[in-house]
């Protein structure tokens, strides 16, 4: 059997002293096949971005990282700097939230794409690389690519800059693309264009995509699989349909119910009380317990592991007992206690 494109197992990231420092990512694992899209969803501070930074060895220097992340069978964690440099930007491309800070402001877009191409293949002439850059801009639907190549990042609009960054990320025909909140800074019509572009790229080029976002809606139609992250762990994972239609975790359900529904605007939103835990003062037991409507005493003592349920894999001690959705909204409105 061949290795999966990406296999992450038991990934942990900590800060501060090894003994009583804080852990921001606490044992994350998943696999991704070529041509598939994995959506990692979580709120600010859940550890979703750190997880991806760890794969690329872009973590801040003081971070401690352990566990395993195999890209086509090759271990990325602890890989030598010189070696990871060959992978990063070549076999693994990345797209960040803010393209303005990801580009060098004093070099033209064309020069930067050429640099990315020639960094990994010195045999290509500048001229040939420029030609390739032009084709790349065309591939991401940037009009008049020959002129656009000669412009600076500030001359591009937000959406165009994000397209240019995607063009650069796919310049060396990567097998894996990591996109961290690629559409968060963009308007909704532009977001639709960028998501459409990413979808096309994964399908046509067989690229595996890890899409990190805080917005469940963004991954609904795009992702094959979705993992929901909270307090440094995956609290639920499954296919997109399983997560949306058969969630067995109160946090996932909370996220779905907190989003305004365009087709049912009268339905009262259900807020999740409280705030996410800080990595420095995580509660014992389940991280979500202090905000959870269903938490019992045992939830505050024992940290649940991800386990296989009928549809999803969920880390909730009470997963099987969760009542249907309508009951929850009603109980919250009437102030009835659901812990019994």
């Amino acid at each position, binding site marked *: 059997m061949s290795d999966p494109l990406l296999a992450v197992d038991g990934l942990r990231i900590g800060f501060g002293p090894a003994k009583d420092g804080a852990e921001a990512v606490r044992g994350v694992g998943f696999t991704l096949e070529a041509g598939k899209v994995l959506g990692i969803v979580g709120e600010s501070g859940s550890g979703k971005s750190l997880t991806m930074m760890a794969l690329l060895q872009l973590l801040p220097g003081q971070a401690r990282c352990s566990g395993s992340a195999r890209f086509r069978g090759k271990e990325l964690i602890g890989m030598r700097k010189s070696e990871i440099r060959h992978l990063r930007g070549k076999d693994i491309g990345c797209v960040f939230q803010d393209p303005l800070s990801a580009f060098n402001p004093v070099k033209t877009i064309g020069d930067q794409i050429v640099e990315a191409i020639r960094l990994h293949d010195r045999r290509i002439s500048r001229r040939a690389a420029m030609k390739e850059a032009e084709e790349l801009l065309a591939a991401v639907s940037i009009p008049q690519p020959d002129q656009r190549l000669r412009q600076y990042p500030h001359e591009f609009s937000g959406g165009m800059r994000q397209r240019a960054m995607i063009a650069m990320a796919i310049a060396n025909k990567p097998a894996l693309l990591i996109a961290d909140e690629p559409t968060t800074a963009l308007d909704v019509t532009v977001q639709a264009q960028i998501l459409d572009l990413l979808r096309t790229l994964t399908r046509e080029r067989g690229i595996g995509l890890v899409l990190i976002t805080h917005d469940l809606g963004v991954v609904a139609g795009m992702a094959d699989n979705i993992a929901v992250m909270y307090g440094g762990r995956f609290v639920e994972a499954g296919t997109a349909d399983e997560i949306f239609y058969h969630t067995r975790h109160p946090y996932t359900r909370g996220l779905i119910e907190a*989003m305004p529904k365009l087709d049912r605007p009268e339905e009262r939103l259900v807020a999740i009380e409280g705030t996410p835990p800080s990595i420095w003062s995580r509660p014992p037991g389940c991280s979500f317990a202090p905000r959870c409507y269903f938490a019992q005493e045992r939830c505050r003592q024992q940290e649940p592991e991800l386990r296989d349920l009928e549809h999803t894999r969920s880390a909730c001690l009470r997963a099987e007992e969760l009542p249907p959705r309508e009951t929850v909204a009603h109980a919250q409105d009437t102030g009835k206690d659901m812990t019994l």
Partner: protein
Amino acid sequence: MSNDETVLKVVDLAKDFPIGSNLLGTRPLQLLRAVAGVSFSVKRGETYGLVGESGCGKSTLGRCILRLLDPTSGQVILDGQDITTLDEREMRALRRDIQIVFQDPMSSLHPKMTVRQILTEGMRLANKAPAQREAAIDDLIEMVQLPREVLDRYPHEMSGGQRQRIGIARAISLDPKVIVLDEPVSALDVSIQAGVLNLLRDLQKRLNVAFVFIAHDLGVVRYVSDRIGVMYLGRIVETGDAAALFDAPMHPYTQALLSAIPLSDPRTERERERIMLEGDLPSPLNPPSGCRFRTRCPRAQALCAREDPMLEGVEHLTACHFPGPNPDIAQTCF
């Protein structure tokens, strides 16, 4: 006090910003028209939602309504009185009737004032007796559903959601007739956002205050608004009852905007046909001739380049030469 009463009326409001200046610094080189003739009205206890993408002029419009920016032309009529002609002193007296909540409470709350001081400030300026202030503060903090302990905290000691609740408490502290909310929840995580939206809905019912709710998130605007205006490049291109606008949008821009929203339903989402808009928003320094949307519009014809369409209709108004439902997009997708 009847609810049919119009409390705020904006008439043909425009705002120009000077760009650059000539050598002597006496005249600007160019004028950027951020708001280009906007009219709408809001009734007591009603929420009027303003949606649009970045650069459409919605925030400038909000600031002009409060006269935080002085409009270039047009009128803002608050309870029958045109406030655009008032001088500074007269405006100051009227400020208690029209308040604002900003997007980022961290930068709109004074970092060195406790919550108690922040909430008392307005009442002090409005010459409320000290004894009354204390009681009023207790009410306020209860209304925004925060524990009394926060009164002695500073803004940095609270979470984003709590801070925004303080911003809201401050806005309602003088019992205003109108509150402009400029992206009040866009800096918050989804789970926190829902609580603040519910709070706003409840407060409005209780206080019968009118909201002008400015946001880029259509789902959020739909949730809180009774009527909605969709803005594009400084203009309202479509406006009407929230349900009518979302169920049967007539303007091609509104249709594109609605079809671009990701739905939290994988099956619908995968089968959905999207209207993809071509290109980017044109520069407001050099807006297209005729209809401002024509450069990206799938229905554009020669007429659209020549004539600027007026906002027409009764109740549900559209500024388009060829308005109508989009036959390619199934109704359920909106």
